[in-house]
């Protein structure tokens, strides 16, 4: 929209342009540098504050939160802002599977919600449809500090902020302290090898540690990517072009997994996201990797195993500790007739006061994506939630160490990494490693070498 573009351009100064261009070049060559140095544009005197237009109508589309009350609070805040500014706000929440085609249809038809919640690397997929939010993110940075590197990697495309960081859903291990004690495991494993040992001991209780290795939207990625990275494996090199899955490190990761499965770690290729939750609530498993939803639902609704549930951060591999969390960001879509109003609303919702109200009600399910949210009291209020805070820092994204892109998005939606492990772990952990790696390599090459 011409108006939006003009507003963005008025925020540019030559200095800022050169800075950003320089950062962009550096980013493409060395993503780690960007992450460790933080943003170059922390205070810009020329950042303009978007003003809402009275009489405008804003529609926001996002994923239904596991915590229903958090969605209610979010809608309440948006309505409150809307009333105060004479704007009609409608928030539509759909399932993750449904958000995908709705977004695709909107992008293709160039019409739809004003704000769409971006999952994973969507800003890289839909770059041309997302408005440049550099101005607004800079406002947030000046107020809230550094953004989380994973959110930034997803939101920033070629040096331009195409989405505003919104939230992190940390994934940690929820486990049954009673079964662990019974099996003689004093604390949750801190390394993958310790997990193998623990899995073996827990097998004897009949309640194994279990995880999906199937096509689960969240749980397959949050598990197997960190395992791969923990042993030094990767899908592609940092340049984002050369497929690098076929390596000794990858094989080490797979060998570890096979060892764990043989010892008693149970993997389920048929499990989707809700299945490990259900298995836990039904007292079938002693531990699984998940968002805080398992613990929260026990605490708030079921009250069966709250006291015997604890949470632990990701174990470490030989090459370090890695995690993968669900990351959501908000993009303002270019077809919106009220881009400035939409931006104003997002800034309001990300304001520290509002945002913390929301995370408090979310009871530990969500973490904030800026420095200012790092010591959110909601995590201190319940010590068992500490693990969910601890997994934010080691978080990476699918395709790491390459930057998120269309290609990493495709690799992720085809579950290439999870399938590789699943094939090798079939038949009690005795699958053909070479075949699994080779298949993954073929699929990855098909993606990354496609013009």
């Amino acid at each position, binding site marked *: 929209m011409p108006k939006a573009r003009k507003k963005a351009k008025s925020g540019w100064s030559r200095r800022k342009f050169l800075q950003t261009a320089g950062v962009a070049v550096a980013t493409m060559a060395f993503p780690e540098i960007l992450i460790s140095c933080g943003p170059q544009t922390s205070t810009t005197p020329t950042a303009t504050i978007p003003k809402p237009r009275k009489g405008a109508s804003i529609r926001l589309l996002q994923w239904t939160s596991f915590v*229903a009350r958090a969605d209610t609070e979010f809608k309440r805040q948006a309505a409150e802002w809307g009333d105060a500014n004479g704007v009609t706000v409608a928030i*539509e929440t759909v399932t993750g599977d449904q958000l995908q085609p709705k977004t695709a249809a909107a992008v*293709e038809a160039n019409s739809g919600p004003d704000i769409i919640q971006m999952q994973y690397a969507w800003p890289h997929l839909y770059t041309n449809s997302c408005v440049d939010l550099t101005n607004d993110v800079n406002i947030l940075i000046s107020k809230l500090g550094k953004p989380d590197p994973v959110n930034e990697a997803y939101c920033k495309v070629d040096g331009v902020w195409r989405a505003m960081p919104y939230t992190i859903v940390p994934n940690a291990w929820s486990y049954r302290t009673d079964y662990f004690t019974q099996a003689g495991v004093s604390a949750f494993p801190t390394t993958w090898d310790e997990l193998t040992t623990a899995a073996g001991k827990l097998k004897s209780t009949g309640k194994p540690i279990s995880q999906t290795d199937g096509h689960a939207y969240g749980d397959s990625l949050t598990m197997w990517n960190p395992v791969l990275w923990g042993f030094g494996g990767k899908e592609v090199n940092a340049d984002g072009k050369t497929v690098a899955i076929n390596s000794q490190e990858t094989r080490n990761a797979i060998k570890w997994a096979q060892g764990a499965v043989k010892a008693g770690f149970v993997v389920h290729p048929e499990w989707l996201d809700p299945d490990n939750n259900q298995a836990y609530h039904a007292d079938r498993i002693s531990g699984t990797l998940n968002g805080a*939803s398992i613990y929260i639902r026990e605490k708030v609704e079921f009250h069966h195993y709250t006291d015997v549930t604890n949470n632990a951060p990701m174990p470490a591999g030989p090459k370090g500790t890695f995690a993968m969390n669900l990351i959501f960001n908000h993009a303002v879509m270019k077809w919106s007739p009220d881009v400035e109003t939409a931006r104003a609303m997002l800034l309001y919702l990300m304001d520290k006061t509002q945002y913390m109200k929301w995370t408090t009600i979310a009871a530990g399910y969500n973490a904030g994506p800026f420095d200012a949210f790092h010591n959110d009291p909601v995590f201190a209020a319940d010590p068992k939630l500490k693990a969910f805070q601890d997994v934010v820092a080691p978080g990476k994204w699918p395709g790491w160490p390459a930057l998120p892109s269309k290609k990493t998005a495709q690799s992720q939606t085809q579950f290439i990494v999870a399938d590789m492990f699943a094939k090798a772990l079939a038949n009690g952990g005795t699958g053909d490693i070479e075949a699994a790696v080779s298949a993954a390599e073929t699929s990855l090459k098909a993606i990354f070498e496609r013009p």
Partner: protein
Amino acid sequence: MIGDSLAGRAIRIYIPLLLLLVVTLFPFYWMAVTSFKSASELFDFSVSPLWVRDPTLAWYQHLLTQTNFPRWALNTAIVAIVSTLISLFCSVLAGYSLARLRYRGADSIGWGIFVTYLVPPTLLFLPLTFVIRELHLFNNLWALILTYPTFLIPFCTWMLMGFFKGIPHELEEAALVDGATRIQAMLRIAIPLAVPGILAAALFAFTLSWNEFLYALIFMNDSLVKTIPVGVTQELIHGDEFFWGELMAAALLGSVPVAVLYSFFVDYFVAGMTAGAVKG
């Protein structure tokens, strides 16, 4: 062979029927049982999952009072009925034309109508969104009422072609010889004879509409205009937690009333059989 005695009927009819019923209905029994189980029972598998120990109506109550389920049911019904009527009107005429009349282009058009079926909705929904945008029909039930015929009409047309083809020519020929026009022959003979087929086509069309998910998901945004499959999945599946009691309650409420309705229709078109006639 097996006669008409009770034993004969038992073997020929009752036993197969019973088997079919058990296999068909078991999942529904399961859904019903689940929809009455209280929260603590839902995940408790240490006891038999086949009975309810502590029945509760909470799920039904919540579904009917705290979600927009009644509204979704109404929307789904309206869309299904109207799009079925539109499609039937078009397909009865088109089906007759293609099945009975000889003229140039009939084959190509019949083929063409069907070939559109080969592009699946999972691909069509993208350009269709553009069409709906141009017509400003987002969030409007008319978006569905007008797009459902795109897959209902080819379907029903072909079904009706099959049924019209099954009616012996002689009946219409006789009428034509007697001086009736083609249209009169169609209206007075072919269509009345094809009523079972038309009813069947109506049932299919209604069911396809009732079941449709993708277009309803894409074109409807506000809760008040959603259809059952879309509304139910969005409000009863939160992230990775499914609310099974309500989901199953919704599944039952969204199918049993319709099945009851259908059974009356099936009754009607099977009632034509006279008693005593051989039934195969």
